[in-house]
């Protein structure tokens, strides 16, 4: 499951308060983008092409690791010019559901769960405390929504609407939670 908020800012001006930072890279693979959105979008566009080409050559859906590696190669080889981080998550037949993170310098790591972006710094504690392995879909949704709401609450440059995507073998489900429907926490 992947979730993002959708605010884009240029210094102090919010350029867009509803942009989707969840990009579908292939049928069962999604990518969350963070950092300079222009860089991230350019990279995902290139990656999307490479992955669909790879999938046609292999005559099977791509592995999540392959998609993440494509992003990593693009980030690592252009590390001078780019400033974008990614979370690639999805489902494939070989290893089932997986989450990979590509950090700013171009390192690739597989993790049970991960958080990224500017707002993530405020929720490391929450995520560490509340994460449990093998959660059900509802628990996972609750965990992700709470985490996003808390991050959006404290980070000036995050906010707006929360987009969540649930990816399973059967398919992909989009959930959009508008700002006023997010869970409320201590707010004073």
């Amino acid at each position, binding site marked *: 499951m992947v979730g993002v908020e959708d605010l884009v800012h240029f210094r102090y001006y919010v350029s867009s308060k509803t942009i989707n930072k969840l990009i579908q890279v292939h049928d069962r693979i999604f990518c969350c983008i963070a950092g300079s959105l222009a860089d991230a979008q350019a990279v995902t566009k290139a990656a999307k092409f490479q992955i669909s080409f790879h999938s046609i050559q292999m005559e099977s859906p791509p592995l999540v690791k392959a998609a993440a590696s494509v992003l990593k190669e693009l980030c*690592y080889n252009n590390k001078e010019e780019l400033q974008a981080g990614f979370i690639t998550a999805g489902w494939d037949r070989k290893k089932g559901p997986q989450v990979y993170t590509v*950090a700013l*310098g171009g*390192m690739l790591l597989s993790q049970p769960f991960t958080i990224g972006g500017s707002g993530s*710094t405020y929720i490391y504690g929450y995520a560490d405390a509340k994460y449990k392995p093998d959660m059900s879909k509802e628990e996972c949704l609750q965990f992700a929504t709470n985490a996003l709401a808390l991050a959006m609450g404290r980070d000036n440059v995050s906010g707006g609407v929360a987009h969540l995507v649930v990816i399973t073998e059967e398919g992909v489900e989009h959930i959009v939670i508008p700002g006023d429907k997010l869970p409320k926490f201590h707010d004073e």
Partner: protein
Amino acid sequence: MDPSGLKLNFWENGPKPGQFYSFPGSSLTPGCGPIKHTLNPMVTGTSVLGVKFTGGVIIAADMLGSYGSLARFRNISRLMKVNDSTILGASGDYADYQYMKQIIEQMVIDEELLGDGHSYSPKAIHSWLTRVMYNRRSKMNPLWNTVVIGGFYNDERWLEFSNLAVCLGLFSVRLFFVSMQPLMREVVENKVEITKDEARALIERCLKVLYYRDARSYNRHEIAIVTKEGVEIVGPMSCETNWEIAHMVSGFE
């Protein structure tokens, strides 16, 4: 200039048609080319320790990838087995280490495919890696790592390090070089050889002190041991820490 001495720069430094305008207070200077990030490591690893003992070499590193002062990735391996006679540990930028790892693993596979019974010696790997790092440094695009290579080849032990600038030798530690030296010297000085258990105890003690004192370390580490029998990577493990003195601390005056 206005005769009263006041400088009215309402539009003096303002946008000019056809030219790039840089907002005041911005740190970007237009026209200086793309921003270069290779000179800044992103996710970094801290110290790597190495000790020779009778019959082999031990290398150890903790499992933390720091993102500045954030302990971001707490379960990453910074040690790799190159082949049955060589181990390698890296500190510094983790993305560059992953790149190096990929290249070395492919090199080792290609070598095995030759099938002539020879494999890379630790000295060969070290020499090659130093040249690569020097070459990258000279192109102003360094691999931002300090690498420790240890091995046991032809009954000889090898322990050297190589970093983004130059290569030097002996018990190699990255950041806390100075603070580990006395600890290590105490055990090793005046002795020609130390045993495997002494070396292991020394390494674990150093890792514990590093955890206490290095602000960018974590209490989870791996140890790689190379001997005539081959390579063994042990871990993840944690040190027992002692915080008894906390009770005794009272005030500051």
